[in-house]
């Protein structure tokens, strides 16, 4: 199929139908030649962010007993970076994702939410899964420790694998941008003035 005579992807009734479609069709046959910047897709529409609020929420996965209580930590980034012209929430997501190296079906789900105080919220949500409630709490604690210690303290030795890597990367990202730990109330007030 040559460019200029590209086919259109049909309307799908559900995700499963689309999954099956891409098993037998090559996306290259459907591209339009129109390139769109990431900022146009994920970035701010008509306002520039003045602050960035980063929330880490760790919530029990389906079927977990009531002892699995939600864990949350919120950070305000007052000078978000603008590396490579990308939206700062994309950079945060990249750092968070670099810290991950696997999934487990029985694990607990966590949510990272980035919201800019002067932009539409939430800006971006990153889903990830950590191995246990204790591990989830260690991640939050490690990130808090990095902030309280100028970003120089390494993650605890007991934190292994992706949890340690995640805490180091995300904590380092936050610390390098002079993030400060804020309360749930302050986070909500910033995001929903």
């Amino acid at each position: 199929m040559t460019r200029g005579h590209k086919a259109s992807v049909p309307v799908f009734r559900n995700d499963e139908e689309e999954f099956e479609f891409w098993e037998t069709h090559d996306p290259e046959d459907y591209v339009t030649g129109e390139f769109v910047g990431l900022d146009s897709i994920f970035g701010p529409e008509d306002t520039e962010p003045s602050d960035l609020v980063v929330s880490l929420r760790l919530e029990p996965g389906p079927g977990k007993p009531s002892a699995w209580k939600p864990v949350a930590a919120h950070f305000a980034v007052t000078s978000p970076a603008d590396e490579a012209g990308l939206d700062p929430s994309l950079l945060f997501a990249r750092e968070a994702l670099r810290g991950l190296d696997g999934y487990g079906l029985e694990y607990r789900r966590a949510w990272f939410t980035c919201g800019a105080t002067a932009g539409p919220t939430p800006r971006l949500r990153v889903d990830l899964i950590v191995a246990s409630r204790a591990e989830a709490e260690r991640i939050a604690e490690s990130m808090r420790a990095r902030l309280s210690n100028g970003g120089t303290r390494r993650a605890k030795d007991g934190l292994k694998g992706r949890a340690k890597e995640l805490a180091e990367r995300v904590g380092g990202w936050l610390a390098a941008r002079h993030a400060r730990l804020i309360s749930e109330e302050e986070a909500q007030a910033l995001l929903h003035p």
Partner: protein
Amino acid sequence: MLDKHGVEYEEAVEALLSVPQSERVASDDPNERRYLARGRTDAGRRLHVVYVEEPGRRARIITAYEPLGRKARRRHGR
């Protein structure tokens, strides 16, 4: 879908974010914005990622695959 192609979710997102632009995919549904990102993971693995733009500035990743792997599959009629 990603498991089927031996791609981790994180790898798909890394590849999606590794390139500054994505190419629009033509669709019969005028309300759906679908893209193809030709990127690389942090480890250097080449991946093509098909994703749909969702409300709230989110992306729903539909599939991701190594481009050579897909061509080979097509040659074998799969």
